[in-house]
């Protein structure tokens, strides 16, 4: 194949990849001195933006700690959740530290580090409204859940008799619940606790049923472009290092009163 047709082919492929989001081998790249890290800002206590425009939260702290352990300069890039994967593929940044749960589906589009935390899920509803969280008890009722998540998939499979109300942000799950647009919410125990049950809005609501660990999800990891195994190795080494030297525990204790590491 001559170089010209190779280029044309690449362009066509790029167009197709944009539309279909199919896998494509990563381009060879030398070790960058600056890593750009994609983070969110809509997911307290993992990430949020203060009045001064500064990002804070557990994801942010972990991202910075990983960079320090890897001994590289990092630049945080704030990105809306919906555009996270496309932006990674378009090289807007080199890694995602945004509470992204590792799933088989996502593994097709990106490579993941070892999990850096794992939080179980749980149902939340008006206290006393449901006797338990079994598919029978929830039959014909409307469950609110974040779209494009293992949780939404879990509900689709296990609760075929219930209707799903899928929302765009984890915090919206509880806004919808409080607004009465659904009967029961299914989400991360950390968010339902911190962002809802502990606030005035969450009065009169309670958790329903046991905590659930999804088999489809294997914790939350750092995502990098497909094929960047060297970077994954460095991230995993950095994660081991911050767990070993106590940094991880120090950061986690700022936000959570239980072990979030999933070990």
């Amino acid at each position, binding site marked *: 194949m001559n*170089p010209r047709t*190779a*280029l044309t082919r*690449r*362009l066509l*492929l*790029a*167009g197709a*990849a*944009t*539309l279909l989001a199919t896998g494509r081998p990563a*381009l060879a790249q030398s070790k960058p001195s600056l890593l750009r890290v994609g983070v969110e*800002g*809509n*997911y*307290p206590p993992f990430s*949020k*933006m*203060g*009045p*001064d*425009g500064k990002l804070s939260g557990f994801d942010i702290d972990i991202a910075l700690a990983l960079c320090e352990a890897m001994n590289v300069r990092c630049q945080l*890039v*704030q*990105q*809306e959740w*919906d*555009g996270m994967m*496309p*932006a990674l*593929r*378009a*090289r*807007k940044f080199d890694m995602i530290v945004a509470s992204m749960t590792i799933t088989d589906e996502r593994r097709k589009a990106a490579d993941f580090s070892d999990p850096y935390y794992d939080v179980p899920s749980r149902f939340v509803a008006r206290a006393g409204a449901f006797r338990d969280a079994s598919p029978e008890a929830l039959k014909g009722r409307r469950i609110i859940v974040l779209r494009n998540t293992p949780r939404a998939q879990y509900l689709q499979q296990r609760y075929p008799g219930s209707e799903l109300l899928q929302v765009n*942000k984890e*915090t919206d799950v509880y*806004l919808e619940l409080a607004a009465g647009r659904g009967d029961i919410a299914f989400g991360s125990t950390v968010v339902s606790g911190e*962002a809802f049950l502990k*606030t005035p*809005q969450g009065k009169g609501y309670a958790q329903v049923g046991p905590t659930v660990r999804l088999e489809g999800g294997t914790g939350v990891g750092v995502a990098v472009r497909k094929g960047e195994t060297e970077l994954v190795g460095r991230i995993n080494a950095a994660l081991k290092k911050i767990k070993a030297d106590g940094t991880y525990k120090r950061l986690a204790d700022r936000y959570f009163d239980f072990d979030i590491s999933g070990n």
Partner: protein
Amino acid sequence: MALLHGYGPALLQGLASTLSVAALSLAVACVFGLAGAVAKLSASRTARAVAATYSTLIRGLPDLVLMLLIFYGGQILLNDLGAARGWDYIDVPPFAAGVLTIGFIFGAYLTETFRGAILAVPRGQAEAAQAFGMTRAQVLRRIVLPQMVRHAIPGFANNWLVMVKATALVSLIGLDDMVHRANLAAAATREPFTFYVAVALLYLAVTTVSIAALGWLERRFSLGVRRVEF
């Protein structure tokens, strides 16, 4: 401001970026719109075909789809081109992508607004100017354009108002506009209502001022025309 938990200045910064996106997009849209209108009315078959394709295609696609295609698709294309030529990573900043995309989209709408306005200028005017020996460009610049402005303003005002609100789309590609700031503030404080109302009021302020300004402009360009003659 106490109501906004200290996020007031952040929202105003967002307003500044919303306004700069809107103003620059308008400039881009006017260029595309004028070129499109002139092309649609030109004698050249090719120019007419290109302009027709442009306005049909763009007006037929959702703004959001186009925005995502240009921002992510364009970036991947550029990366691949760069890899083939040995360039470094070239970033398409969300600001430029937003301005170009919105300008490109609204240029298609303005094409029709401007075309209608040009048609509203009596043909005899251009013919008279030609009889005086002016070139085509001179006829356009001295005779047609100044008179078409009056006819274009109502449609133009519509497009501008819709466009100001369409800039909210750029928050999706990561530009720090007003809606984006409000989203983040709403998540951090868990008071979505407060921030969305604040943003709604800011948009309303912008559009109210725009309507007043465009009204003045319309009166200014209608000086030679009496109100009763339609």
